């Protein structure tokens, strides 16, 4: 069953009606509803098109967080072969908010690392809603080092509301872990490419996405702070998240203009969750393309280009 977002409610009504009609017809052979139902389908389709033609930043946040959106695990399952998960930070624990391991993409060995939010109550709790603790970042650092040692490109899939705000996380050095992970991203002599597949939440995202190439799904977001958090600080009212989402310029489209996002991966009409397979396929194509662009470059070149990219950021702004 489709999970509708708040702004999709009118759509839910139309699609619901069409479904009801067809259900009635299934019970009663005399009824011919197909014409009417098809008209409703058309209406729904038009509405979907118009809703998604120009999503506001806040609506994009909701789409980016949609629970049925493909998650890290889905991409790994569908796009990679021989995925061999590697666990633990060798110090404290294995953080289930972060998954990763060696795998093959188009038969070529790579390291894949990502945030995983989980799909149901049980797995969401186990994955801590994709909010990593220091161990998650330290696991990522370890896997990046392993990749670097054996010359495997690193692919990161970013989907996190942010780093976990917890007591133990702070005590074990959440900030240091994030800082070291970002540092590791910048040290790698192998290509690092990153795709923001849902939410790029602040430092928790930077720790994975300081990459040679950063791609973003069309309706994904990447932000210094959540719109709710920004609203409660700057507007002193968490309900002003629409305004905050607008002001923060957190969409893939704005980030592309600012040079933070190198590539936008188109989503199916109605968002990634409406056609998960097509979304995953599009991400796979983008990964192959970006890896190809970095193929054959020396370690110094890969590292140097990555540094230069970040040092040069901020030369372009956005007009109001």
């Amino acid at each position, binding site marked *: 069953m489709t999970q509708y977002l708040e702004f999709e409610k009118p759509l839910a009504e139309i699609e619901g009606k069409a479904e009801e009609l067809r259900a009635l017809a299934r019970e009663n052979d005399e009824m011919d509803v197909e014409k009417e139902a098809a008209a409703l389908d058309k209406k729904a389709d038009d509405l979907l098109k118009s809703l998604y033609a120009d999503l506001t930043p806040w609506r994009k946040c909701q789409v980016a967080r949609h629970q049925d959106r493909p998650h890290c695990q889905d991409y790994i399952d569908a796009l990679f072969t021989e995925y061999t998960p590697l666990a633990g930070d060798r110090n404290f624990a294995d953080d289930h908010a972060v998954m990763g391991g060696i795998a093959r993409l188009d038969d070529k060995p790579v390291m894949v690392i990502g945030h995983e939010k989980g799909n149901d109550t049980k797995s969401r709790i186990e994955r801590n809603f994709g909010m990593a603790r220091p161990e998650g970042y330290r696991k990522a650092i370890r896997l990046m080092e392993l990749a670097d040692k054996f010359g495997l490109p690193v692919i990161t899939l970013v989907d996190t509301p942010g780093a976990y705000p*917890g007591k133990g996380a702070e005590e074990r050095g959440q900030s240091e872990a994030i800082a070291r992970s970002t540092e590791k991203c*910048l040290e790698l002599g192998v290509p690092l490419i990153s795709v923001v597949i849902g939410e790029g939440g602040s430092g928790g995202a930077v720790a994975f996405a300081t990459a040679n190439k950063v791609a973003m799904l069309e309706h994904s977001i990447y932000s210094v702070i959540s719109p709710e958090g920004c609203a409660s600080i700057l507007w002193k009212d968490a309900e002003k998240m629409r305004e905050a989402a607008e002001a923060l*310029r957190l969409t893939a489209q704005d980030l592309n203009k600012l040079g933070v996002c190198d590539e936008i991966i188109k989503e199916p009409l109605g968002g990634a969750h409406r056609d998960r397979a097509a979304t995953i396929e599009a991400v796979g194509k983008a990964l192959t393309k970006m890896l190809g662009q970095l193929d054959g470059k020396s370690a110094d070149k890969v590292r140097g280009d990555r540094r230069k990219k970040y040092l040069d950021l*901020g030369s372009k702004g*956005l007009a109001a």
Partner: protein
Amino acid sequence: MNWITNYVRPTINSLFSRREVPENLWTKCDNCGTMLFHRELAENQNVCTNCDHHMPIGARDRLATLFDGGVFVEVAVPEPIADPLQFKDQKKYGDRIKDARKKTGEKDAMLVAEGEMGRTPVVVAVQDFSFMGGSMSMYVGNAIIAAAERAIETKRPLILFSAAGGARMQEGILGLMQMPRTTIAVQMLKDAGLPYIVVLTHPTTGGVTASYAMLGDVQIAEPNALIGFAGARVIEQTIGEKLPEGFQRAEYLLDHGMLDRVTKRTDLKDELVTIVRMLMKQPPAIKGDLPAPTADEAEKTEATAE
């Protein structure tokens, strides 16, 4: 009290009085409540003479207490584009910047200076909490990169004093992108084999701790400084329990292995000199407040630095 301290007092005094510290005014220590005479408090680097509580100290005053004779030269910071997102909340970002500049007399939230500290050539960057909460902006990122570049150019260590609530929201993603940018500055120092020392001051939180403020070769904090990634209120709301006494304070972090040292502000200069001279394999320093170097001496140290 040795002759050097005797000699230097007037210089330091004149530095503080130059900033028009009102005469005959008292400040109440917000920890112990003792009424402290302004001049006495300033001489003690804004540390309560009764209970050792560390009150905020201005970025410029901080520099004056560190450099010999209070003399330093500012390092120029490349100006970033203004208001890249045309950000507006209840107030325009452009207006907020204007107000902060007027209030502080500074361009943005980071000052970079070079000079001698205990006759040791150093570059020092000080984050200015009074400028929009010290928040990490493109300017702050540029300042840290400029500080690292200057340190490399002159083969000096970089000492950074952090104080910030995090990245500057009004610069959106470009504020956040100062995390990788400043990390590159730290890596440049590492490549050049130069020490990078961080002194965390109250408060240092958010994206600042999650980048350059936690990547020092040596991590020092001022007593009782608040240091953390997430805010205590957010953590309490998330985990649904009260946080222990002293949580996210310097001493707590020291206990949890996150810092090398917690050092009183009044001891910082000597300690920093000791540390950087050892890391730079220089002979032990003359301790205490030294007068500003004469032109002659300055040239000599300049030459040894080459």
